[in-house]
């Protein structure tokens, strides 16, 4: 027991941001557990024999490994995966456990935590590092592995399936769902509070733990829809046709609310840094969305823009647009061109990687920015101090890809 706790202290020392989660675990000694395992209620089951034959520093690695299963909600995700794909049974349990281990093991070791003997890594199956458990489950068959890894068992905390030794939801010292969320939230906030000290994998987890990323198509759609549909866009009172209320008010001419379909202008960043495939998919999406909000195809125009803006081309056939450009970017000229055109647009959708200066003032129409993500430390060879500005606060920003 003392050895196990010394190992926990070791883990806390080298991973201080996991301290709250490590201390929140309740230790249960059990001889029927193969090594160490966790359940969904944040109890950790430990085999005394395993502790006796494992050095302290390796035990510290196991602590971090087990708590990672819980922080990353592998039991909930494992259960969900099993339900969606109707995969139950012991072989499937093992597969989920291995996939969960892959997700954890490729980024928690090193830097004070030695890789334990027998830890499974994605490279075993020649898979790339850094994927999620679900991705490993989808891509890998893992049939070759199962025979010699049958002892591997991280408990229901890793795959969502009850084990005979577990105390279950009613047992003592379990954490309720709200308490688990609270601990995970504290750890995530701690990691976000000290950027730079934590590895990328954990930072990514902290960012997404409580706000899972949403598919960009839906977000872009909702952003364009709300921009094109907001009151004041393409909609005004008109005396061309009397309001239906007029029937109840004889002798009074009331204006009716008329709606003209919104004009959408897509400004496309055609500088060298954006790939054709990215642009193609995003453009098709914008066209489809603007049709869905009542825009006719001839009301959607496209401006390709690198350092200078091209001419606004009506989007009559998606395949007919020639995207010209390739140099540096200055989207300001694209915005100016869009606002100068004969029919001023109601919505401007800018598709860009964000490596551009932005207009200093808010344009007189709604703006949606579809942003292709780029690594945070993009460098400009000619000007090493150059950091691209973030999109301005008046734009709806949707990250694409």
């Amino acid at each position, binding site marked *: 027991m003392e050895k196990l706790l*010394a190992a926990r202290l070791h883990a806390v020392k080298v991973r201080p941001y996991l301290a709250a989660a490590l201390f*929140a675990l309740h230790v249960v000694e059990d001889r029927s557990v193969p090594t160490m395992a966790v359940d969904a209620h944040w109890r950790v089951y430990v085999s005394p024999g395993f502790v006796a034959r494992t050095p302290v520093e390796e035990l510290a690695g196991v602590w971090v490994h087990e708590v990672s299963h819980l922080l990353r909600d592998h039991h909930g995700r494992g259960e969900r995966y099993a339900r969606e794909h109707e995969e139950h049974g012991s072989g499937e349990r093992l597969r989920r456990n291995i996939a969960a281990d892959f997700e954890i093991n490729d980024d928690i070791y090193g830097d004070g935590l030695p890789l334990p003997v027998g830890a499974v890594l994605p490279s075993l199956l020649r898979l790339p590092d850094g994927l999620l458990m679900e991705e490993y489950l989808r891509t890998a068959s893992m049939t070759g592995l199962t025979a010699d890894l049958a002892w591997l068992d991280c408990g229901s905390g890793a795959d969502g399936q009850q084990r005979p030794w577990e105390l279950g939801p009613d047992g003592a010292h379990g954490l*309720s769902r709200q308490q688990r969320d*609270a601990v995970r939230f504290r750890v995530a906030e701690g990691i976000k509070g000290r950027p730079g000290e934590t590895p990328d994998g954990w930072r990514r987890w902290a960012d997404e733990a409580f706000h899972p990323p949403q598919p960009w198509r839906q977000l872009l759609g909702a952003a364009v829809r*709300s921009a094109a*549909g907001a009151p004041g866009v393409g909609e005004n009172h008109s005396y061309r046709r009397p309001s239906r209320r007029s029937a109840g008010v004889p002798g009074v001419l*009331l204006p009716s609310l008329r709606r003209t379909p919104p004009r959408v202008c897509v400004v496309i960043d055609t500088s060298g840094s954006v790939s054709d495939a990215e642009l193609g998919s995003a453009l098709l999406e914008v066209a489809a969305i603007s049709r869905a909000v009542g825009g006719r195809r001839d009301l959607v125009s496209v401006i390709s823009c690198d350092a200078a803006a091209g001419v606004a081309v009506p989007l009559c056939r998606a395949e007919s647009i020639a995207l010209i450009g390739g140099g540096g970017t200055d989207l300001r000229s694209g915005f100016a061109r869009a606002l100068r055109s004969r029919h001023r647009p109601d919505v401007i959708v800018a598709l860009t990687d964000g490596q551009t200066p932005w207009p200093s003032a808010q344009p007189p129409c709604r703006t949606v920015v579809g942003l292709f993500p780029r690594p945070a430390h993009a460098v400009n060879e000619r000007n090493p101090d150059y950091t691209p500005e973030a999109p301005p606060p008046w734009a709806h920003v949707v990250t694409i890809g």
Partner: protein
Amino acid sequence: MTFSTVLPAPVPAAGTSAPAPVRAGASATGTHLALADDLLGLLRTTTTEPRPDEQLEALTLAVAADLPVLLWGEPGIGKTAALTQLATSLDLPLTTVIASVHEPSDFSGLPIVGDDPAVRGVPMAPPQWAVELVRAGRGLLFLDELSTATPAVQAALLRVVLERRVGALQLPPGVRIVAAANPRASAADGWELSPPLANRFVHLHWVHDREVVVRGLGGVWPRAELPRLVPERLPEAVAFARRAVCGFLEARPTLIHRLPSTETRRGGAWPSPRSWEAALTLLAFGTAASVSREVLALLVRGAVGDGPGLELLAHLDRMDLPDPESLLADPAAAELPVRGDLRQAALEAVVAAVGARPERERWEAGWAVLVRALETGAPDLLVAPATALAALRRDDWEVPEAMERLVGVIGLARRADRSVGRITAGREQGVRR
């Protein structure tokens, strides 16, 4: 105009089933239909069983607290069924209005010309469902399909939800408002909820429970036990809720008002003075009804959003920690939390209290608290507080006997240090090689 009024139907008592009487000897004409009716009657005869259901408890509590609730859920998941059950158990008539098929004027009122418009003005007439609600004096107004209502209708609904006004008509205080919306992922042609409207609701995510559905289709639906307010606890509950929310916002003033900035969070709950007031109300109701922390968490996160809600709950956890001064006053009887991270937080609070007013007796009492913690729990939690407490020692203070008993803890810390040292040494060796 689409609306329906459902009066509460008598609920069959739990555990008993009342099969519809089978008509014998019906006339030849209409026999088929009569038989069909009999079959339908049998199918619709279901019973209920008591079953704890957190989301239903949360919904009931928010409705009791007279806060508008917005249920997010995939189509066909049983939001309407839950509402019907809620109306029955609260004994309120249910009025359903499908927001997406209405025009803005149906909520803001239709102009009617009176005798002398120049003198009397043009009154805005309310629709029929509103008039009937006012006539009944109480009821549950269910605004369905909120997310597919156009922005103009949403703007008109702002007044209905906040001020309870439909045209010139004021809805009586006995009317409770519940809305439902489909999440953006499943509403292909939906509009997003505007932030002002979203801020007025308590957002609850409605999910189905596999077991409940299977058992319900088998004829037994769950009947949630409604949370009951305990009369004696009311003043205490209000005091607690005020202390919790005010204390928290004093510590985190940036969370008082924060418009949703990213696209993913739009249309959901976000913190503002209005939604904090809702959270305070919910906290008071939850405390007075002694609901579980789970239900409280659903409600608070639904009112102010996930992040601020979780932080408030963490603040509540800290409020539950024992007071450091009373621990220092009587270390032998100290009751420390069982959970490791909370226990460590309590011990660190004790050390901080000693550090704030360092006196020899208090310092020694601090050691006594640590010894008590050693006797009742895991020793590795004590390393950090013991190191901090030792650092507070003044030169003329003698080492208390209690400190000797923590030698084991220091041994544990050394062992961990040695193992960390071995790793770094091993790595340096590896580099040299």
